[in-house]
């Protein structure tokens, strides 16, 4: 690797203070530091540090997404790679411009946003829509708040929300059937399980959902892969288990309750049982993907431990409410974004309750 380090050394003067390309220093450093870590040392106690850093932390999320990514390429074709490429290119550009203007480092949070965003889009989304969506997500969802760590909303969801509202026809007509690109199925496009349930009262069987046979967003169809990836994230401690678990449990519980009250869609047999409606709500749509990869985002969910449960339960209740009562067929995106906006308030209340006793003692 000596030649590479020499190469970086030869380029570096261009990006230093008086160099021609000084304004691109964040970009240069980001690329150099991917290959060669800066030899940063501890200055004071603790003199040793845990080897995990933010680059690896974020990379682990991508590793956890690999089953979903691979499955989506298998289902929807190499087009998905193009969508990912566009997402990274446009989002990365926004990130680089902001870093250069602010004269700060390029933060790694973008690695995750850039891959999550295409995975929550319908597979037939035009590339220019991908570009617009990720631009809005990174720009308005993250950078205007101050960058990674300061954003209130999940940037990928902000982008998704924007294009859902701006281009409703594109977003609802583009449901390609998995396997259609290589002629594995007859139909080119098909209704999603959530739409089928809402309009025709048909609950897709759980095994079909797990294997990813029905259509859906790019990354949400192969649910076994999502479950494996999500559990991997929890085991590595990169995601805190409290949010996904409370989210999924509350979706089950409230869908079951909705089923008991007879709010479940009627099927040909005269009404789905509460249990099968709960199972369908757990596996159908993007609940699994949302819970495992979006809701548990540590920056935009609650940081207090009780807050994490409240956040997860709130997401679950809202998801079921939107699915059962609203005009939309899916409520995951809205519920997470709504709960994102409540997260600071939940944390505030939790802290108030937890430290109230301290205050009264002090007075």
């Amino acid at each position: 690797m000596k030649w590479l380090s020499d190469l970086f050394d030869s380029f570096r003067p261009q990006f230093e203070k008086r160099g021609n390309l000084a304004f691109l220093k964040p970009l240069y450093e980001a690329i150099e530091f991917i290959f060669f870590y800066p030899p940063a040392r501890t200055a004071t106690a603790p003199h040793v540090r845990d080897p995990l850093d933010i680059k690896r932390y974020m990379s682990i999320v991508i590793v956890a997404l690999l089953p979903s990514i691979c499955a989506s390429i298998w289902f929807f074709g190499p087009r998905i790679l193009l969508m990912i490429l566009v997402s990274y290119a446009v989002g990365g550009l926004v990130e680089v411009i902001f870093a250069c203007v602010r004269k700060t480092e390029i933060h790694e949070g973008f690695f995750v946003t850039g891959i999550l965003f295409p995975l929550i889009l319908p597979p037939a989304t035009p590339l220019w829509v991908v570009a617009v969506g990720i631009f809005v997500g990174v720009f308005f969802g993250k950078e205007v708040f101050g960058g990674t760590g300061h954003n209130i909303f999940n940037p990928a969801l902000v982008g998704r929300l924007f294009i859902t509202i701006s281009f409703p026809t594109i977003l609802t007509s583009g449901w390609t059937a998995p396997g259609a690109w290589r002629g594995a199925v007859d139909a080119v496009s098909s209704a999603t399980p959530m739409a089928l349930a809402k309009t025709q009262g048909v609950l897709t069987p759980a095994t079909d959902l797990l294997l990813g046979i029905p259509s859906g967003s790019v990354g949400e169809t192969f649910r076994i892969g999502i479950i494996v990836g999500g559990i991997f994230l929890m085991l590595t401690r990169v995601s805190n288990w409290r949010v996904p678990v409370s989210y999924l449990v509350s979706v089950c519980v409230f869908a079951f309750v909705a089923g008991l009250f007879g709010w479940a869609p009627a099927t040909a047999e005269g009404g789905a049982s509460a249990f099968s409606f709960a199972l369908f709500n757990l596996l159908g749509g993007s609940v699994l993907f949302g819970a495992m990869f979006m809701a548990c985002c540590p920056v935009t969910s609650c940081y207090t431990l009780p807050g994490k449960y409240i956040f997860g339960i709130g997401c679950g209740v809202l998801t079921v409410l939107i699915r059962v009562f609203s005009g939309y067929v899916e409520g995951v995106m809205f519920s997470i974004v709504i709960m994102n906006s409540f997260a600071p308030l939940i944390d505030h209340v939790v802290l108030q309750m937890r430290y109230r006793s301290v205050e009264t003692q002090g007075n």
Partner: protein
Amino acid sequence: MTFNGGYNVMLEGAPSPGIAPYQKPEVLYLPLFSESLDFSNLQVEHGEAVTKGQILAKDPINFSVPLLAPMDGTVNLERAERHIALENLSSAKEGAAMQAEDENQRQTLLRMGVWSSLARVDSGRIPDPENTPACVVIPVSRLEPFFPDAQTLLKDALEQFGAGLDLLHKILGDTEVMLICAEHDSGIKSQLQTVTAERSAWLKLFEVPELYPFDSPALAAQLNDLNPEKTWATDLQAVLAVRAAIEDNHPFVKRIISVSGPMVDSPGHHQLPIGYPLADLGFRNGGVPLRVVNGGVLTGTAVESAQLGLDCGCRSLNVLEEMTKREVLAFVQPGFTKRSYSNTFASFFKPLFKEKFTTALGGEARPCVFCGFCESVCPAGIIPHLIYRYLDHDRPEDAYRVEFDKCIDCGLCSYVCVSKINHLELFRAERQRAIAEAIEGE
């Protein structure tokens, strides 16, 4: 009793038990400072001949605790800056120990250099000899890498330890005493149980899991509902020194210190006089730059190159390699040799192993992403990232509202931080500021 958080840093180079011999020094370099002391009030002149136990300097701020001559010799004030060099050394004849004057026994401890081993749990400062604690906490098992091993310190000294505890209890106004012992340490535990059995009225054994930092006196005070303002801490060697000072008139001028860490060839214990030249310890030559840490690797301070001899607060030296290499694609390596609090490295599948840590930060500094690791390792049950944010925004009153005063200074939050934020540094700065303010208020 419930214990929150905690984490063991598996560092290579634990000191082997037993005391290894050392080379006799030619010169002693007594630093006029230590982490908590500043001996600005000189009591000797250049060229003066001094005897073992004679007061060389005092710290006027901390109740005039003295710096004592560890051996007979001649004072040289010009040999090194901020040090008293002691030349023409000769061991004092046995029996020529200092004569106890008819004085208060607390004054004896002060004059014999033992008092400076006591610390208040709330501030870490040396307590006022006029005050009386409600409880003295003594961590016997030490869980931070690395400190002298209790087995080595207590070898053939159990009776003396008991006698020292009796004296400490009596001198400090019938105070209660609590010994902290790790549960796994069955050898030490049974020995301590024989000591506590005869003194159960005032001596308590507090058993903790073998997990850093449950040996912390401040944490023991919190978990046992002791008033931190009236709780003092000291260590095992100081208890032995109390007995030696009172019964044998021996000044506390020699310490058993552990010299350990990954960059020491044969990590072990040495009994060394204060001022022993660091250069004679022989770890400063190895081709790679080294960092010598005075104390444990999580909470200790780096020894500056200007410091030439052991200071009087030193209990252990840990030697690490200074990181100078640049790792290639470090974040995508499987990581069989790196163990992390998270399970993100391949070493997760290996059994526990001792790791060769360097001073590498292991990444770049970034804004907090609220991963929550600091909160889950925190033994005090507080939220370090929240407190850091308050202090960083200059809102100390909010930091205290979320129980910043519970922080026990263990450094685990900084250790696990993914964004490489150093909470400990800011927390210590705030505590210093608060102490300075309190002193000014008095």
